[in-house]
């Protein structure tokens, strides 16, 4: 009897705890969007870096904690020490796998620990993070501390696509990722190759203006080199394959949804052509390319096995490692293509003439945690790393995955002299900003990207393109329905407005 009574008491205690946790503690709390009293702006003078240092000095002795993807932690770790020395604010960097840089903020916010001040994320996560109250807008801080000239120094396409959402500044860009084409100039400018190509296709061997040309050039190079160098390659593996789909689909004018009804449009003609393109590239690509991720792509490229590839700007720097930039990652084979690489904008249309397209894909942006207890100190660290001086340093930093996004970086004599073709590299990256395509920066964006990722692996695994697209459209519709059609619609409208803003900016 006694034992039963004790068991009952214990069970009741646990049930009471459960009821408390679920129904009381779990209720929505007011989001911590208020900021501590900031120092008056007039006290902070100088350029952006100097202002950041002056602001941070007010919080000397505090620690700013940030999460960052392990592979990209180098600059934060190295320059965090410089920042601490200059300001007295300690920077603690938590290195996480890419997936966890997304899940950790959710769990931290649920627990309201306030343990992390800055989250390094990618733009397409902003709407979900904002909806969940994990991050907060930084408009007030930007207006107060970032000087206009430094703001205007940021390339407009990247600024609009990565930092803004629904009219507010939710993130600060520290990385100018944009997709451009990297190609083997030694093959493209080989007289034999040029002659044979012209004879076969009737136009000059040059960077492609359409995806049809891309395929023809790719096939030609694979045949011309006897398979020693494959014409082109790209990422198809689950995880990041959706960037390649988005680049082609959005670049060709595709829209993920009907903005009025939010009915998915991915299974339309542009979606079908995009999937067909991703499949067609396998014909002249390296064997097993259907399972290639970024590591395979960049390895193949620097190893001299791939003539054309489009991806993030570090590929251009890695290819030139032997030319003076001591920034070579240990996970790549030694480069064999230094001095042989040139750059171009990517095609937009599948056939014929049309404007080029440059996908803003997976940039590193730094966001301010709404639970941060050191918001101004955290913002000082963010704006310090975003300053023109630090942007140049980080984009030239050994093994950095931080790419140029400021006009001062594109124009920097130091950068332009980093390797023989560096000027062309920077000019192409700058030009790409005019044709910038924002990523899937909508509520549920991460789920839509994952659906596209699975669509690609399904087709690579042998599923019929149309049925895979129809499945993807159904899944997307289910996500829209679950998250609320009107909410996602408003979010999608904001994304389309970003695209319009970029067009208007140029």
């Amino acid at each position, binding site marked *: 009897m006694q034992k039963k009574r004790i068991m009952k008491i214990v069970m009741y205690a646990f049930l009471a705890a459960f009821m408390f946790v679920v129904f009381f503690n779990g209720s*929505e709390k007011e989001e911590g969007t208020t900021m501590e009293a900031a120092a008056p702006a007039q006290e902070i003078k100088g350029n952006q870096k100097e202002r950041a240092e002056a602001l941070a000095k007010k919080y000397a002795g505090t620690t700013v904690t940030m999460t960052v993807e392990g592979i990209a932690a180098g600059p934060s770790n190295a320059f965090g020490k410089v920042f601490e020395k200059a300001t007295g604010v300690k920077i603690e960097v938590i290195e996480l796998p890419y997936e966890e840089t997304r899940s950790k903020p959710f769990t931290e916010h649920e627990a309201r620990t306030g343990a992390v001040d800055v989250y390094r994320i990618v733009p397409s996560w902003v709407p979900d993070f904002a909806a969940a109250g994990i991050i907060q807008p930084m408009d007030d801080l930007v207006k107060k501390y970032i000087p206009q000239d430094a703001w205007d120094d940021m390339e407009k396409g990247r600024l609009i696509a990565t930092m803004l959402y629904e009219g507010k500044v939710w993130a600060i860009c520290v990385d100018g990722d944009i997709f451009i084409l990297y190609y083997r100039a030694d093959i493209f400018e080989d007289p034999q190759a040029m002659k044979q190509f012209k004879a076969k296709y009737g136009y000059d061997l040059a960077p492609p203006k359409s995806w049809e040309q891309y395929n023809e050039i790719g096939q030609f190079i694979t045949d011309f080199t006897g398979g020693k160098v494959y014409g082109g390659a790209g990422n198809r593996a689950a*995880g990041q394959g959706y960037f390649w789909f988005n680049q082609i689909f959005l670049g060709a004018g595709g829209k993920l949804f009907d903005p009025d009804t939010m009915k998915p449009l991915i299974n339309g003609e542009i979606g079908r052509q995009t999937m067909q393109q991703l499949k067609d590239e396998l014909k002249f690509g390296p*064997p097993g390319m259907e399972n290639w991720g970024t590591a395979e792509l960049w390895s193949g490229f620097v190893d001299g096995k791939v003539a054309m590839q489009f991806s993030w700007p570090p590929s251009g720097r890695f290819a030139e490692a032997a030319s003076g930039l001591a920034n070579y990652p240990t996970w790549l084979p030694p480069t064999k293509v230094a001095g042989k690489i040139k750059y171009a904008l990517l095609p937009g249309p599948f056939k014929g003439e049309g404007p080029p397209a440059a996908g803003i894909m997976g940039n590193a942006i730094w966001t301010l945690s709404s639970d941060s207890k050191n918001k101004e100190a955290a913002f000082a660290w963010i704006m310090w790393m975003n300053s023109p001086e630090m942007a140049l340093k980080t984009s030239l930093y050994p093994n950095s995955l931080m790419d140029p996004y400021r006009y001062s970086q594109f124009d920097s004599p130091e950068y332009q002299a980093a390797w023989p073709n560096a000027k062309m590299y920077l000019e192409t990256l700058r030009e790409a900003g005019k044709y910038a395509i924002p990523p899937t920066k909508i509520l549920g964006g991460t789920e839509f990207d994952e659906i596209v990722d699975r669509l690609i*692996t399904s087709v690579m*695994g042998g*599923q019929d393109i149309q049925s895979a697209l129809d499945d993807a459209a159904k899944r997307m519709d289910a996500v829209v329905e679950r*998250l609320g059609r009107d909410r996602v619609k408003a979010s999608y409208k904001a994304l389309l407005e970003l695209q319009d803003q970029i067009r208007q900016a140029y």
Partner: protein
Amino acid sequence: MSRPNNVISIAPELKGVGGIKTWARQHQGMLMVLPCLIVMLGVGIFPLIFSVGISLLRWEPKIPGRPFVGLANFRDILISAEYWTAMRTTAIIVVLGVTIEFFFGLGLALLLTEKIKGKRIFMAILMLPVMMVPVVVGYTWRILWHSAYGPINQIIGWFVGHRVTISWLTHTKTAFFALIVTEFWQWTPFMFLVLLAGLSSVNPELGEAAEIDGASKWQSFWRITIPVIRPVILVAVLIRTLEALKIFDIIFIMTGGGPGISTQSIAFYLYRTGARHFRMSHTAAGSLIFLIIVATIISFAVKQFQDKKGG
């Protein structure tokens, strides 16, 4: 000698202490177990009750509020094609994987009950895979199955006389095959070890007696050895089944649940909805349904075994 007055005044207190002591003595066993019970309830029962609570709400950070939705999450799971595809995938891996592991494990155990030269070294090598962390196994086999650089394709290439670039992990059938082979490689030694322990406990005199009575080796194995080691077989199969039902690491590393969602197990599905999409209530409901299904199957299997044992 008269008793001091203060003794009288503290008497009830002493009585109280004595009462607690007596009570404690009487319930000594219960008190000893209590800390352990509290920890077990805290880490085992409480999360279960908590997830039942979550499953009745709509808890998803991307959607404002956490309203009570009753059984709506369970209904969503029951009509989710993706959930049942994951269930089917898990079932295929469990049935095929555990069956193959069982027969190979039993075969190896039977082989090694005999006196064989180098038996100890062989056993030590055989035990290595089971000691490896599944994530390491996943990465190792991912390289082995790699279409361009993987040794498996290279070895096949030697036999067929030309370069082979089978993309094992990107096609549904070959991906399943690769997963089951990887599972087989890692877990057959476990099955072997448990069954070897069972076989070692079989009294050899039973076999000798059967032989004298004219039983063939097969009859002796089927009628004597198997019934004797039946409890061990049940334990080995149950442990492996329970473990295989939770398969996650190898799928996460090798196929990412793909192509599409074709190799996505239940554990992987729940990870995606919970840790990637933060659909906390949906994930809780999915976990509970899975728990009910697994508990029913396991209870049925144990009951079947007990009935046979009793009969």
